[in-house]
């Protein structure tokens, strides 16, 4: 069985999972179990397909004549394989986690939640493998729709509806830009196939406009800075396992889109593309982390931190594009490796952190950092896994976040070979900005971990918290393991990523990893070995132990007192530093930048308000138009409707059955051909 067939099997399982969760809607025990279980199995198969495809690239799947708008084509090159692997792994963890987690929403319709979640993952898998622009858009829009329903799932809350509305607006604005860019390509090439796009000779006007449309279109989904405003609210409103998927892999489908369209298909040939990407990357990184610093809501903080991380990924992509445009293969290679590696890392640790935030929310029913505290004692597993995520987020060696930042710095450093003055000016400044971002990111990580899991408990709920159920722990544990694995296994990962860059972006001639080392192009000068870092750090822990033993410190023992010292006064937990006053000093130091926030958000929010007003106006005008226009049309439609009603049972589940049946028939056809 080849990788694409296995992927189709995984999609089939997602489909069955979605269907079954609707069927077992009433029975709450099965409703909780089935979507998660089916999703886990399907993700497992998807992961298998990614592994298979990493070793032997499958031949593309082509379904001619079966459907209109050209062939339904799917292909799994190394870039798609990477994305399929990421989505499946996160799907595995999130589904495992969801089995116990969705109890949290037992007052809502759990069958629908399971249906949407399974469908959402399936759509992401299709988006990254399909090789036809038309179907790409269809799946892209379906992905947007399912996430919209997931965000507004808790629709009793008006915040959720508002969040969903802003998301819908931004996502469709982005979707429209992408559509336009594909349309331009369609007009010039007369085909919807990615292959034809790639082989076509495009003139510079077409290239530039496609680049701009695609970059900002996908950028809206990825959350680059002026277009990020939907993220904090929708990430915090969606259920946590969905947020984990949205933040970690749905964002990466947008990164995939940028890489596929802007780099793979049209190919960066001019310098300013790379500079533009670099500019928005740097802007997103610094603004994202500063906003994360200023918030008190754990999921909003993580959402802003995702903006920052997308910025770092875009820095990598920008360097890569500059490298391609200025014909410096090493720069391109390191830039793209940094971007891909950081995408992979970010999806793991941000997924992990969102799941951890969900666990805290599950027990405490709050997302406010100031009402948490001291949870490490009550929820040790959650605390441990969250800590791994926080360390990875802060790029602490030898975890995975460090390796990708290392590669980003190394990519910046290739500037010393460059003859282009602009590149020589811009890249080192971006490196300094990255350092600032890194330092602030640590502050964010310390703030989030510190005020959630350490110190005194700050609310009634927090002091009564207990560890979350096993399935949630196992989901988080899987991702924590992944973070450690991606850090220590850096040479292995990098060798695969370099294959991605070699095959998809056609950069060759350098090796970047060998045995236990990774190095930027040559192994003579500088290298990094995360396994050795881990081993040395572990073994150096012996030194302080020896020191204590030599001085006879072990005999003294330890006495635990109830409270920390408070100048002789009675201690109160209100004395400890909470998230609120933790970031005060940053707020005063970077006052100017925080002013920017309102400036950035105002126009977008006013557009949102304006469109809402237009909608209201239309609703008001409706009765007037009714008599003139609507009546004859309604009559005709009524007549037609009665005929069609034979198919319409009026039950959502039946419609879903139609969709699934169509999917199943398609799959049978596929297997017949394959």
């Amino acid at each position, binding site marked *: 069985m080849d990788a694409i067939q296995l992927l189709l099997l995984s999609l089939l399982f997602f489909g069955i999972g979605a269907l079954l969760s609707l069927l077992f809607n009433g029975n709450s025990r099965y409703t909780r179990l089935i979507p998660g279980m089916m999703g886990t199995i399907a993700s497992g198969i998807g992961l298998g397909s990614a592994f298979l495809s990493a070793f032997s690239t499958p031949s593309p799947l082509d379904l001619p004549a079966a459907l209109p708008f050209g062939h339904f084509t799917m292909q799994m090159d190394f870039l798609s394989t990477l994305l399929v692997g990421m989505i499946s792994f996160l799907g595995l963890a999130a589904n495992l986690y969801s089995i116990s987690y969705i109890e949290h929403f037992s007052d809502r319709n759990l069958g629908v939640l399971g249906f949407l979640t399974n469908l959402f993952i399936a759509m992401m898998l299709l988006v990254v493998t399909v090789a036809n622009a038309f179907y790409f858009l269809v799946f892209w829009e379906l992905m947007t729709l399912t996430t919209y329903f997931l965000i507004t799932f808790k629709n009793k809350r008006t915040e959720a509806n508002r969040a969903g509305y802003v998301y819908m607006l931004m996502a469709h604005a982005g979707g429209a830009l992408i559509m336009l860019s594909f349309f331009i390509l369609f007009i010039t090439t007369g085909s919807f196939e990615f292959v034809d796009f790639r082989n076509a000779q495009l003139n510079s006007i077409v290239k530039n406009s496609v680049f701009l449309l695609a970059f900002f279109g996908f950028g809206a989904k990825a959350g680059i800075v002026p277009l990020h405003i939907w993220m904090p609210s929708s990430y915090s409103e969606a259920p946590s396992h969905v947020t984990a998927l949205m933040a970690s892999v749905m964002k990466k489908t947008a990164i995939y889109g940028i890489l596929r369209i802007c780099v793979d298909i049209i190919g960066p040939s001019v310098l300013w593309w790379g500079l533009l990407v670099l500019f928005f990357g740097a802007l997103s990184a610094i603004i994202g982390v500063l906003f994360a610093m200023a918030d008190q809501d754990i999921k909003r903080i993580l959402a802003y931190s995702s903006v920052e991380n997308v910025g770092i990924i875009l820095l990598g992509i920008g360097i890569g594009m500059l490298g391609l445009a200025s014909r410096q293969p090493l720069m391109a290679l390191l830039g793209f490796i940094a971007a891909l590696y950081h995408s992979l890392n970010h999806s793991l640790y941000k997924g992990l952190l969102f799941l951890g935030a969900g666990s805290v929310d599950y027990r405490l029913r709050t997302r406010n950092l100031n009402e948490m505290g001291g949870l490490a004692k009550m929820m040790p597993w959650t605390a441990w896994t969250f800590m791994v995520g926080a360390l990875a987020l802060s790029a602490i060696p030898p975890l995975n976040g460090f390796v990708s930042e290392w590669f980003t710095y190394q990519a910046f*450093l290739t500037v010393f070979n460059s003859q282009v003055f602009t590149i020589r000016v811009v890249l080192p400044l971006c490196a*300094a900005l990255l350092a600032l971002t890194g330092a602030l990111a*640590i*502050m964010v990580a310390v703030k989030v971990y510190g005020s959630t899991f*350490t110190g005194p408990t700050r609310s009634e709920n927090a002091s009564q918290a207990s560890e979350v159920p096993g399935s949630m722990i196992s989901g988080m544990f899987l991702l924590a393991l992944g973070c450690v694995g991606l850090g220590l296994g850096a040479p292995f990962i990098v060798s695969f990523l370099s294959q991605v860059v070699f095959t998809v972006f056609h950069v060759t001639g350098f090796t970047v990893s060998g045995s236990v080392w990774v190095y930027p192009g040559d192994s003579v000068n500088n290298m990094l070995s995360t396994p050795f870092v881990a081993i040395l*750090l572990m073994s150096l822990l012996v030194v302080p132990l020896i020191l*204590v033993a030599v001085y006879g410190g072990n*005999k003294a023992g330890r006495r635990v007192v109830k409270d920390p010292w408070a100048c002789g006064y009675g201690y109160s937990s209100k004395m400890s530093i909470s998230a609120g006053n*933790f970031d005060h000093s940053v707020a005063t130091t970077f006052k100017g930048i925080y002013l920017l926030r309102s400036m950035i958000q105002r126009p977008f929010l006013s557009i949102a308000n304006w469109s809402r007003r237009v909608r209201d106006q239309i609703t008001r005008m409706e009765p007037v138009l009714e008599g003139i226009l609507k009546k004859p049309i309604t009559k005709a439609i009524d007549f037609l409707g009665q005929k069609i009603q034979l198919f319409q049972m009026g039950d959502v589940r039946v419609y879903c059955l139609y969709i699934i049946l169509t999917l199943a028939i398609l799959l049978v056809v596929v297997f017949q051909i394959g």
Partner: protein
Amino acid sequence: MISVKLIIIGLIQALVVLLVAPLFSGFSRQMRAKMHNRRGPGVMQNYRDLAKLMKRQEVVPEQAGWFFHNAPYITMASTLLVLMIIPIITTQSPFGWVGDLILVVYLYTLTRFVISISGLESGSTFSGIGSRRELLVSVLIEPVILLVLFVMALLAGSTNLGVISTKIATGQIPYYTSVLLGMLAFAFASYVEMGKLPFDLGEAEQELQEGPLTEYSGRALALMKWGIYVKQVSLVALFFAVFLPFGSMTSILTGVPFLSSIIFSIVIFLLKVLLAYFVVALLENAMARLRFIKTSVITWAAFGAAILSFVFYLANV
């Protein structure tokens, strides 16, 4: 890449700095006393303090958890690893096969991360404020350090500290204006990182009860203090390795007897560190304390110097 001699040198470096670090802090303590017209406790006082603290019972608040108990060990381990990577005895990086200057910067980050979380974990107000200050200073200083090191790496064409050190020592990178400005900015940054007046943070006994260390006692406090002494010396060593690597062996493979040349280099290194501590102590005692919130106003100057260093690099002077 990996040679036995280099590994031995790396271990010797870490050991030497570990053993002499309290001496240097004692020296600066003694010097401060002299400048205050006091007699002072003598340069060996820190060893006596550490020995005594080690034997004392540890008193910890109930809320203290994993980070609080392990931070002293992690701090020590990561700083020692830094000392194995920085070229001290030779101009080569003894453990250069483990990582480069980016790893060194991020190992300092690891230390900062665990110390500040341990401060929050104790639940004490003082240690909480101390943690926050520690992190804010790093936010202000880290871009300076990285930009300067980046310019040096650009000049050397490599992020390996050994390569930079060797190229400076052999004159392959002459002292351009950019190098001198970088040296200035880096000296400033490492001065701040060492926790000295007017940015006094780690040692602000009167004001903040030693910041994140407030709740530490007994052997944990001893290890924490020792770790911080070692970290201060390692910052000085990093400065000398990148900007003034004179006296270090340029190659360990020449005919010079191995042992005697190591001893010679160590002596030179210790003298250089002593000189640095002398200057630092002079500066520290000549300055008044600065309101913390004003720190950012001053660190911009360092960032300015770093930017200028970069501009001069672009102009090739």
